[in-house]
């Protein structure tokens, strides 16, 4: 029952190949960031996924807008920030290459940030600044 009407990525209009150039901020997180498996083991937490996983999935879904529910060839270019098929294909590419050594779902997050930077949705410098602010905010008790 292999579906014949698969919503394959359109080879006609085509999407650009995934930009695999390293991004300094994300490389730094990749090197020093502590994954959930490591943290959960240290603190004796048993939930398999980090608490931020659902928020990450929601972000991915919302960036996709109606590309979540329309075949790829029916998604009007520019109608959503980051079409789901394009993002997932880029995540596959990035997961198999520069983020191959990062566990899941941390690599899903790195891949999303990578795609957003490369698509010009966010800027590496502002992301660096915002991460610093978030960290300060969450640790300022």
């Amino acid at each position, binding site marked *: *029952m*292999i*579906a014949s*009407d*698969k*919503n394959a*990525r359109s080879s006609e209009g*085509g*999407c650009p*190949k*995934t930009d695999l150039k390293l991004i300094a901020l994300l490389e730094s*997180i990749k090197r020093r*960031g*502590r*994954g*959930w498996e490591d*943290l959960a083991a*240290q603190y004796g*937490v*048993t939930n398999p996924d*980090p*608490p*931020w996983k*659902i*928020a*990450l*999935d*929601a*972000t991915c879904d*919302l*960036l996709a*807008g*109606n590309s*979540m*529910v*329309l*075949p790829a060839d029916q998604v009007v270019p520019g109608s959503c*920030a980051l079409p*789901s*098929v394009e993002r*997932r*294909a880029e995540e*596959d*590419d990035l997961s*198999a*290459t520069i983020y191959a050594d990062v566990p*899941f779902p*941390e690599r899903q*997050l*790195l891949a999303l940030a990578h795609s*957003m930077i490369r698509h010009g949705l*966010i800027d590496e410098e*502002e*992301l660096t600044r*915002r*991460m610093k*602010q*978030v*960290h300060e905010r*969450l640790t300022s008790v």
Partner: protein
Amino acid sequence: MSDKPHEHKPAPMVDEVSDFEALEIAVRELAIEKGLFSAEDHRRWTEYVHTLGPLPAARLVAKAWLDPEYKKLAVTDGVKASLAVGVDWINSPPTGFGTPSDYCNLRVLEDTPKLKHVVVCTLCSCYPRPILGQSPEWYRTPNYRRRLVRWPRQVLAEFGLQLPSDVEIRVADSNQKTRYMVLPVRPAGTEGWTEDQLTAIVTRDCLIGVAMPKPGVTTNIKRPVHPAVHPVHHDH
């Protein structure tokens, strides 16, 4: 009020902010500030996703095993049958974006002793989230997605599911409009069981089709994730 010291121990929690946690928040906040989506949409979608899991699908299967009429409904109209287990494909998802009406074609694939279904999404990771929750990591990997359609029998064997050669395997390839779940064969040894007892043995893996329900087995196996042998080169 008792003078006894408070004996309740709080559940363990991670007491540090990881770079990944900060990255997730930073990405989300910037996306909201730039108007890519609203904070309210994010909150509603996150709350909705929090409610999802494989239990409704497991209950659908248990009900179908116990009630032949409900089984008929399940295999002919999965969306309608989902209502009986508390899942409304059309109205439950937040409707502030997208077109949820397109996202509501559930097909329930009934196994027989000589026919085994298994679900994949070869393109990305389409999954019947309203009734099955979030997909497992291995379901998302190119390794599973590519190899299952080529060598389903071998891939199922890697999950510990050895099927006799006279059992036909059908691979259902999900897409953005149609989602699938498997209605496995009720196992021997469950005669007289209640719906709750039956529900407990229908694991997520049984619903994807990479496992068969078995009395006493209520958890999924942890499958190691392998990279694809051939590097990814999408025809973008």
